[in-house]
């Protein structure tokens, strides 16, 4: 009962207080980073899009890493973009978990993408529906310790309001990463 109330509240708040900025103008925009270490009952990414992945990461941290999480979540991060379309919200997100395939672990390597779980969730009239599950690219937004050539790295998304299509791409070191390009219909 309490869970249902919380979910309803999350759905109501999803449009108003989401940490995911809404985009609908068709331009490429970097997907926003969310850090789930602080549990939230109102963040739709935590409550609607990735609750199972967060639970699994918490279980792994407790069981395998022997971590006392002290009421927090394990260090799970996600990228997301939200689009508004004819009264519905669409959230596109990729999440960094053990289910990802990451790049090289190597002294001579540079920044590489991870291929991670991807979900597209529609929130329409208070009802959340997973439209699509796939795998897509994840990279951390750059920090100051990275080389200058990586300061513009990002995973980007855009929504075509005419066709309802979501597109996704990644740029690392100023180059488009071929296996990160995705295109999904949402209607």
């Amino acid at each position, binding site marked *: 009962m309490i869970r249902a109330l919380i979910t309803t509240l999350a759905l109501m708040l999803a449009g108003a207080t989401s940490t995911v900025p809404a985009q609908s103008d068709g331009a490429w925009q970097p997907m926003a980073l969310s850090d789930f270490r602080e549990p939230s009952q109102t963040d739709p990414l935590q409550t609607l899009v990735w609750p199972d992945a967060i639970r699994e990461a918490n279980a792994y*941290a407790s069981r*395998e*890493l022997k*971590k006392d999480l002290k009421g927090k979540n*394990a*260090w799970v*991060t996600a990228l997301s973009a939200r689009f508004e379309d004819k009264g519905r919200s669409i959230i596109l997100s990729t999440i*960094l*978990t*053990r289910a*990802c*395939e*990451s*790049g*090289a*672990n*190597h*002294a*001579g*390597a*540079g*920044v*590489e993408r*991870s*291929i991670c779980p991807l979900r597209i969730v529609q929130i329409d009239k208070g009802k959340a529906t997973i439209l699509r599950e796939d795998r897509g690219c*994840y990279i*951390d937004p750059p920090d100051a*310790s*990275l*080389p*200058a*050539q*990586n300061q513009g790295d990002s995973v980007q998304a855009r929504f075509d309001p005419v066709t309802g299509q979501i597109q996704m791409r990644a740029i690392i070191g100023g180059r488009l990463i071929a296996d990160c390009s995705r295109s999904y219909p949402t209607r």
Partner: protein
Amino acid sequence: MMTRTVRAVLFVCGLLFALPVSAQRTQFCERTNYSAQEITDAVNASVLRDDLKSTSCTLGGLGRFESGGNKGIFNGSCCTGIFQLNTANVRRYADTSREGYACMSLQEQVDAWARLTNDGYNTPAVRRLMEMGTFDGQRVDAGFIASCIQLGPGNCQQMVSSGRCSGFADPNGTTICDMARAARSMSDPNCREGNNTQVCDMGPGDFPTTPVAANPPAPSPSDIVVGPGQI
């Protein structure tokens, strides 16, 4: 032996110079110089699968190859620690930042790497390599498997699909076979496997057959002896 060592040193030097000029190597916490044997010992005390531990000497060499035994080093772009885990894997397998990881003990770092390697073991590329035993003339040992996982299972799959070591090379030209060779070259020549007495350079595809076949156990009074006509 000498030639192999010189080649390995030249290879590592080339690798360091090949880093992007703007990548600023950073030292977190203390600088260490763990030997190949110390890294091997940490591998043997870790949660790594037993079949990979059976050739753990090459893994000590791999740690030397990646970091020179310096567990606090960040390469300036992605990778930190004794086995140079990338930042995504540091978060996933150690639940910490690259700085936090660099300050962990050698054993804690190796444990995180072992979890990553155990997960990578189940990927199609690794399974295929294990079945093959040798790949493009190279023995598939623990160092080779770890190198496959080090450079990324997707990249490794690309190499396996091509059937050649040259099927995948990173932007600096490093192949998985190069890495495995360097790991072997940099292992301790007097290496002691932890809880296993097999020789260092025996790989998962090289199961010992001679000792068992050449030295069958003596018959026991409890044995049931079956003659050819009784079958």
